[in-house]
């Protein structure tokens, strides 16, 4: 493992590119995420936001460029070595992806036991603690199907936290939710940010971005077109594509 640029950047993205066959999805993406930072990624549909996020933890293998996490270039790692890295990056999906065949508690315990080789009691303690933290202690022994969308997403966050990650990746965590449930999920995310968790969040919740994000990255046409503070991006976008997009979103509110 090569060690480069030992600074406070927890993730460095260098010239990242991704093709599906002939189709270019990402081209020459660069960026840094510092420890404790919250980055929000916004942009139109099909811009490549999800693909970019999935390239960060190698769910998708980049075609070119590198992703350096804790000083290690992830694109150079074998599948086996990747497992260790993925432990350190939790991920939360738009569609929750809870395991419907297990209770909430089992959902939280599975990875700690199978991957971290925790004992059953230890894993149980972690699960209880985290469910308490997301306000779902009462739902430990139900199956995901009987939860509301907001509850499911909070369980998904707890499940990712159970692996004690250094970074959390969120891919539109609230866009599959009924409006009155959006708040409870964003609330948990805000708490996480306040506690100093490094987070990369694809979202269209402007309120959250304004309040929580250190930086907002605007993606369109397979590239990051603008990076700035939320205030700048929302009130004074520079790139015309950004301007157009922000305009449309503000108009809708």
């Amino acid at each position, binding site marked *: 493992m090569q060690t480069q640029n030992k600074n406070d950047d927890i993730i460095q993205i260098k010239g990242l590119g991704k093709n599906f066959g002939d189709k270019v999805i990402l081209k020459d993406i660069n960026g840094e995420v510092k420890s404790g930072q919250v980055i929000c990624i916004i942009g139109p549909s099909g811009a490549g936001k999800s693909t970019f996020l999935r390239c960060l933890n190698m769910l998708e293998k980049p075609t070119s460029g590198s992703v350096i996490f804790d000083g290690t270039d992830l694109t150079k790692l074998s599948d086996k070595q990747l497992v260790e890295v*993925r432990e350190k990056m939790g*991920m939360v*999906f738009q569609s929750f*992806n809870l*395991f419907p065949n297990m209770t909430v508690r089992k959902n939280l315990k*599975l990875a700690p036991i199978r*991957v971290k080789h925790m004992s059953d009691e230890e894993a149980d303690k972690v699960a209880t603690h985290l469910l308490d933290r997301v306000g779902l202690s009462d739902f430990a022994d139900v199956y995901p199907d009987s939860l509301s969308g907001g509850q499911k997403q909070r369980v998904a966050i707890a*499940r*990712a936290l159970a*692996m004690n990650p250094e970074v959390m990746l969120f891919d539109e965590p609230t866009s599959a939710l009924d409006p009155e449930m959006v708040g409870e999920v964003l609330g948990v995310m805000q708490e996480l940010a306040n506690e100093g968790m490094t987070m990369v969040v694809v979202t269209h919740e402007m309120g959250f971005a304004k309040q929580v994000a250190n930086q907002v990255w605007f993606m369109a046409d397979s590239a990051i077109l603008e990076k700035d503070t939320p205030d700048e991006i929302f009130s004074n976008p520079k790139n015309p594509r950004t301007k157009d997009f922000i305009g449309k979103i503000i108009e809708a509110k």
Partner: protein
Amino acid sequence: MKKSKTKGIIQFILLFLSVFTFFVMGSSNNSASAADNSLQKVKQRGELIMATSPDYPPYEFQSSGANGQNEIVGMDIEVAKKIAKDLHVKLVIKSMNFDSVLVAVETGKADMAIGGINPTPARRQSVDFSKIYYTGGQSFLINASDVNKIKSQKNLAGQNVGVQTGTLQYNLAKQYIPNVTIKGMDKTTDLVLALKTHKVDAVGMEKPSAEAYVKNDPSVKMIPSTYKLTQNETGVAIAFKKGATSLTNAANKSITEIQKKNLTQQYLASAGKYMKVNTVNTSMWHYWDYFAKGVEYTLLISLISSLVGVLLGMFLALMRFSKLKWVRAISISYTEFVRGTPLMVQVMFVYFGIGVVVNLPALLSGIIAVSLNSGAYVSEIIRGGINSVEKGQTEAAASLGLSETDLMRFVVLPQAFKNIWPALGNEFIALIKESSIVSIIGVTDLIYQLNIVRADTYRGVMPIFVAMLLYFFMTFILTRILNHYEGKMKHADSE
């Protein structure tokens, strides 16, 4: 004119044969007749013991008549009764294998043997024979409506004649009926149906069978054939112990009377009545055990095959997810080939193909073929089940660092199997229907049994209909049961 000449020659042959018979018999009798007290012994005993093998209707057969009890009936039994009556003794019937019938007479365990026995020269070596009391031979069945059109074999020239394929009748019809169009079928019942639906004008068959049909079905009539066959093959006589001349002669006296009064016709008619009881009266209920056996085998074959099929299918499905290209290729080729060819040809291939190498019974061959077939379909079901698990599940597991094996074991397979239970249930129900094909290699499944009942009852359609209903009830009830459990499973989930 030509005809009468033929007749003359036959009569001449017959005459010669009788003389010849008499001569041969006489010569051997001479040595034994001195000590012949056979008739006296029967009269003293007050019983005439006859040996027979009651499996040859309408000569002699078991009848589980309307009154329930099993008795041996048939034309031969009537003949024997007549003889016993004439001797003023009781008739005792000893039932045994046909092989043992003559031996019983030779060894004195029975006084006489009767049972559609042709007095062949070979047999005359070991036993004495009575006069011929009935002459069988070949005949034709025609539609009753055609009696004026088809009066004799001559009228069949240029007509359609049905015969069992590969039988003596086939060759006889082909050689002796001018310009005939021959329709060969495998089953006599099918031939009779073909006759009744006017697909053929006549059906060639052995005389007693034809008479049995006639007795059971007023819509058909019989005409004799004019094929030339020897008495040795068509005549039947009673066997006695060598030298039992007095008893033989007594029997011959009865036979002479039977022939004079043409009693065999009467006997045959009453035998026919028993056969009628045996078939029409008791309807399909009488054969419930046949159908039950068929249902049992059909369920057995389906059950075993679907279990083996699930194991094989699981194996094939996992092969599909292998990292080795050739393993995947084998699984794909097998699945595609099996799903691309009819089960019927697969059953034949297994039975006759594997049969060349190892000696496999039909039932086992059938189960193997159906299992191999089912495995291919089940593998697709399982593969479908695995693919039906959302991609997000795999991604979530990967993002948590779970290994491929853990992913399959804890996440994908449990969900896949829950999704495919209904499909596996349907596969089992489908097998109940598909297994009907194994009947072609002689496995006694429901279809095979219905064919037996058809042959036995001379009723062409009813057994098919009964089997159809049975199949329907099996699939219908099983579908309900499966739906019930499926519903329960869904219910249990949402709790």
